[in-house]
């Protein structure tokens, strides 16, 4: 067990991958114990928190029935919509201003900003995905929604949303090391983006002029894809995963550039 050196002499890449996995695992455990502790239901909060949110929204939308007068399954509409919001909104919120409080961890040479980001993103993704799955099964069991017509499409759309959330989160997280304005602006922006994100409406129900503009937002494509997989036979979905991938790729590139910049400008106490 000496410093950096692992047992078998594998290739450099394999070895650094092994170290990376170990470090992310360690950070993950640390994050879970720090955030949820060992008392009461502990890390179950990881799934319960997003579930409570989604349940609440589903209840409100079902009660008001105000979303759409059509034959749309409201519960499926709410669960898909709100699970999608949570993914792209929580991820950046977890990463913005997450570098400074963790600076002292950089004294451990194998711990990099990317690892701290990865651990938090993984935790967030697992939490939201589990809540999404449990709620879907729960509502299906009590007959409020039918299981997805095309589960693969749901997974595809959800992975695209997660990719979008991660790239945006890493970009903003690293950028927030440069300026505290990121934190100030992210919260109002996230709030304002929610009604535009396609979670609370179907693109098809919007006027064509509005559709053209709204489809510039990548998350709209993801939500439409998830809903296509759930109840595609009930509406006409509008999405282009190629466009979404292009935006995601751009943000991933920006994120990596910005992380590199932040890594070179760390000054721990």
């Amino acid at each position, binding site marked *: *067990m*000496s*410093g*950096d*050196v*692992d047992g078998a*002499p594998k290739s450099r890449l394999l070895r650094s991958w092994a*170290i990376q996995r*170990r*470090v992310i*695992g*360690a950070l993950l*455990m*640390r994050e879970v*114990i*720090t955030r949820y*502790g060992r008392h009461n239901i502990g890390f179950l909060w990881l799934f319960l928190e997003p579930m409570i949110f989604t349940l609440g929204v589903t209840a409100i939308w079902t009660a008001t029935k105000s979303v759409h007068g059509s034959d749309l399954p409201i519960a499926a509409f709410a669960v898909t919509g709100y699970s999608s919001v949570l993914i792209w909104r929580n991820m950046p919120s977890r990463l913005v201003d997450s570098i400074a409080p963790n600076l*002292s*961890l*950089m*004294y*451990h*040479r*194998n*711990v990099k900003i990317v690892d701290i980001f990865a651990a938090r993103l993984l935790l967030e993704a697992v939490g939201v995905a589990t809540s999404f799955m449990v709620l879907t099964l729960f509502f299906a069991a009590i007959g409020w929604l039918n299981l997805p017509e095309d589960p693969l499409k749901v997974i595809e759309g959800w992975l695209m949303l997660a990719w979008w959330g991660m790239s945006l989160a890493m970009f903003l997280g690293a950028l927030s090391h440069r300026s505290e304005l990121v934190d100030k602006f992210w919260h109002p922006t996230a709030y304002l983006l929610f009604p535009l994100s396609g979670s609370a409406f179907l693109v098809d129900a919007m006027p064509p002029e509005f559709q053209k503009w709204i489809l510039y937002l990548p998350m709209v494509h993801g939500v439409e894809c998830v809903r296509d997989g759930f109840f595609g036979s009930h509406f006409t979905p509008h999405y282009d995963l190629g466009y979404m991938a292009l935006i995601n790729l751009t943000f991933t590139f920006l994120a990596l550039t910005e992380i590199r910049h932040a*890594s*070179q400008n*760390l*000054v*721990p*106490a």
Partner: protein
Amino acid sequence: MTEGGMINVDKVSKRYKVRSGWSTVFRDVDFRIAKGEKIGILGRNGAGKSTLIRLLGGVEQPSSGRITRTMSVSWPLAFSGAFQQSLTGADNLRFICRVYGADISETVDKVEDFAELGKYMREPVRTYSAGMRARLGFGISLAVEFDCFLIDEIVAVGDSRFQQRCYDELFVKRKDRAMIMVSHNDRYIREHCDRAAVLAGGRFAVFDDMDEAYGYYQAHDRE
């Protein structure tokens, strides 16, 4: 594979952006240290000793120049700033074990035995006294084996018996390791190092002879 390892510091400079432009901490720091060698770096408060330690540890990047490491380098000895205050001493230790791939149960036993924290090992670090925190920090530093230890100012921790044990662990059991020690006090450096360097006025000078180094240090006291 760590046989013949070294740290090579090649014309390293570090500057920071401050309000009035750029402030250079030091320039052209140039030295190398091989396995088992011990070098002491003398410098007054603010001379840039801790900055140099952070560069050597790879926490910060040089503004120019290169540092190449072919041996494993520790974090600054007994550094306790990376502890998560709301976690217990044992949790913090387990985190370090996971990061460095050390055997958890074996290491926990070893550190528990060394740091003598008793049941406080299972209490949040925030409830520790300064001395307890330092004992845990020292214990954890010795839980992972490194080829080169970075020592930022030896501070006396605990009672004299504990200090003796720290001394044994570091300078007797690990005397085959390389050590880079920074201090404003020449006593420890004279006692433990084979070479001394002085960091003063942004310049770095290496001496083979301790008295020569100390003379230079005294002469450049005010820089």
